[in-house]
């Protein structure tokens, strides 16, 4: 299944992941699973079920705004797709861009920390702490900080204008640039950490063997290092892409976005909380879930992680 990718094993570990063993049925295992299962039934399966029901509801004729009754109105789905088509597309485009940028930034970062700093454990630990440090500050605060930095009176815009890199009437907040920037920034650690985890265990003897077999450093990276770090790359891209698609903080008008950059999360929020169009919001949520699930399954299939796990 798709989430098998999260069980990223050490690249090139001498022994393949533990072979599936026939487990004896033990009542202890069931007892240990019970709290988790109960929790999931109560807080995941039940709301999901309720969400599915809501998504098919229809408005009560002559009722108040926000008053709906149980029905099977499939048109809800057709309507939201036709209404919010651009938002759906924008969500996936922004999330894909953020994933690519996070990978481009995160991989070298993870490589330096996991491979180059291996000989210097103190610096390696420090770099890891720095990578995780942003988590100690609320992401709302950090996103607001970026809003300030990118503001029209801020020094970034000022400097860019002075250097005439952007026209005098240009701005950064509320543009797709700042939204994708915010998403990339927010999910960079989620990309870098899993990649770091695989690269940190990379056996450098494979790299040496590549060099010994006439491969220059670029080829060694392409043929040996990168293929061996694919489990980490898959985990990192999934951990970035999935939450980024549904993100509604960065793209919101209150933060880095504007109405022109609204993503699915913003639309769902507006429908639930402002327009009180619960069926539309529920239908959009389910569409988001299903499309992510399908995309991720295809991605994991095609990247051939089965071979590595």
């Amino acid at each position, binding site marked *: 299944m798709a989430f098998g990718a999260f069980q990223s094993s050490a690249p090139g570990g001498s*022994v393949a992941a533990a072979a599936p063993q026939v487990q004896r049925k033990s009542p202890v295992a069931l007892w240990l699973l019970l709290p988790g299962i109960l929790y999931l039934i109560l807080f995941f399966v039940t709301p999901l079920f309720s969400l599915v029901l809501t998504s098919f509801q229809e408005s009560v004729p002559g009722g108040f705004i926000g008053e709906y009754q149980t029905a099977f109105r499939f048109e809800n789905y057709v309507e939201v797709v036709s209404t919010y088509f651009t938002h759906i597309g924008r969500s996936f485009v922004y999330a894909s861009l953020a994933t690519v940028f996070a990978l481009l930034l995160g991989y070298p970062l993870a490589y330096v920390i996991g491979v180059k700093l291996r000989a210097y454990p103190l*610096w390696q630990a420090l770099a890891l702490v720095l990578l995780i440090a942003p988590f100690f500050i609320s992401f709302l605060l950090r996103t607001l900080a970026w809003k300030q930095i990118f503001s029209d009176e801020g020094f970034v815009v000022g400097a860019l204008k002075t250097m005439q890199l952007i026209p005098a009437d240009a701005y950064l907040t509320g543009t797709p640039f700042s939204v994708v920037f915010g998403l990339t920034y927010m999910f960079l650690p989620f990309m870098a950490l899993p990649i770091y985890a695989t690269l940190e265990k990379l056996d450098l*003897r494979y790299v040496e063997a590549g*060099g*010994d*077999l*006439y*491969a220059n*450093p670029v080829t060694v990276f392409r043929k*040996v290092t990168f293929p061996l770090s694919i489990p980490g790359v898959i985990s990192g891209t999934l951990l970035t892409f999935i939450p980024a698609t549904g993100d509604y903080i960065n793209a919101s008008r209150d933060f880095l976005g504007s109405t022109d950059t609204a993503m699915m999360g913003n639309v769902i929020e507006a429908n639930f909380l402002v327009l009180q169009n619960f069926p539309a919001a529920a239908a959009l949520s389910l569409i988001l879930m299903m499309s992510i699930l399908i995309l991720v399954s295809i991605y994991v299939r095609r990247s051939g992680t089965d071979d590595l796990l």
Partner: protein
Amino acid sequence: MNKETSARQFAEAGADLSLVNVTKRFPGFTAIDDLSLDIPAGSFFALLGPSGCGKTTTLRLVAGLEEPTEGRILVGGKDVTDTKAYQRPVNTVFQSYALFPHMSVLDNVMFGLKRRKIADADQLAKDALALVELGHVANRKPAQLSGGQQQRVALARAVVNRPALLLLDEPLGALDLKLRRQMQLELKEIQQEVGLTFLHVTHDQEEAMTMADTVAVMNQGRIEQMGAPEELYESPQTSFVATFLGQSNLFTGEVSGSTNQVITVSVAGQELRVPTDRAVSHRGDVTVGIRPEKVVLHREKPAQSSSVTVLGPGRVTDASFSGVSTQYLVEVPGMGQIIVFAQNTSLGEHASEGDEVFVSWQVDHAFGLADAPAPEGKYVSDTDTVSVAVQEREKLEAEFEEA
């Protein structure tokens, strides 16, 4: 036919390897100390020594995986000191094999060929796998093979490139004894078949002696002695070689007389004679050695003669029977314990513990060493807690300095 055209891109034959005054220092210790070495093309050369003696470092220097602190490295007369591993016409069979786990066996073997854009890589790789009799596992992943099979794949992956020089880093270390013996013969066969220069690093003296044309015994970053296996065994020049390569009885004393043919060393009142040409130094304190299998055990005192050295009487303190021979420990007053290997060529002629015996050997069989054996513990182990602590501290200091 196709093979012949592409074969031109390979080394036609093995190349000479020369190390010129090579020194390699790591923070805190010198792994290799002013090493000079010439290995002629087409030979099977073994570097033999205990762990930590610098033999693997030597190999890594030749492969280009480490840079020498000082000195030059020449392959086929060309200075390769400043080139990177991937630019050298050298391949290594690693101790850990280092087979790429994400590639099939065939892709592993083709790796080097493809990097050099050699035509027909697929066929050549298959031929190489056939050479090590593993054609049938070409499509498997390395993890699906046994240790011995992986070792053979590692060998094929290196040999297929026809390197001028093939480096073997204890490639048989992980195999069990039976497989080891079998692989030793196969390796030797392959070397003769393809005519490459092999540089083999091992700590197994038997392996080195059975396989190599020339053996160099390394200790503490220096070569103690180099030569054909028989030469090293029959006339060791240092106490390290005498004890590392098989066993030796060693006696240290002052030279009390010398003629053109023999020098006489007196040890605890006994006169031990050594042929002059088999002794490294001829005055002062000299250590005399004799191999245990050259020592003969007697019940009665044998007749004295100028060509035989006789010691005794002594007492047998231990006798252990091992089938083909019996090993005796004989305590001779003033001389310490003497090891004797007696071939079991006749029935029932055995000395037993507590018996009074004499030992003798041919003067021609004795050898004189350049140094005396170190009293206790010949070298400080690298894994000794004190050394580890020192190395750790130095590593930390280096780290802080670099930062």
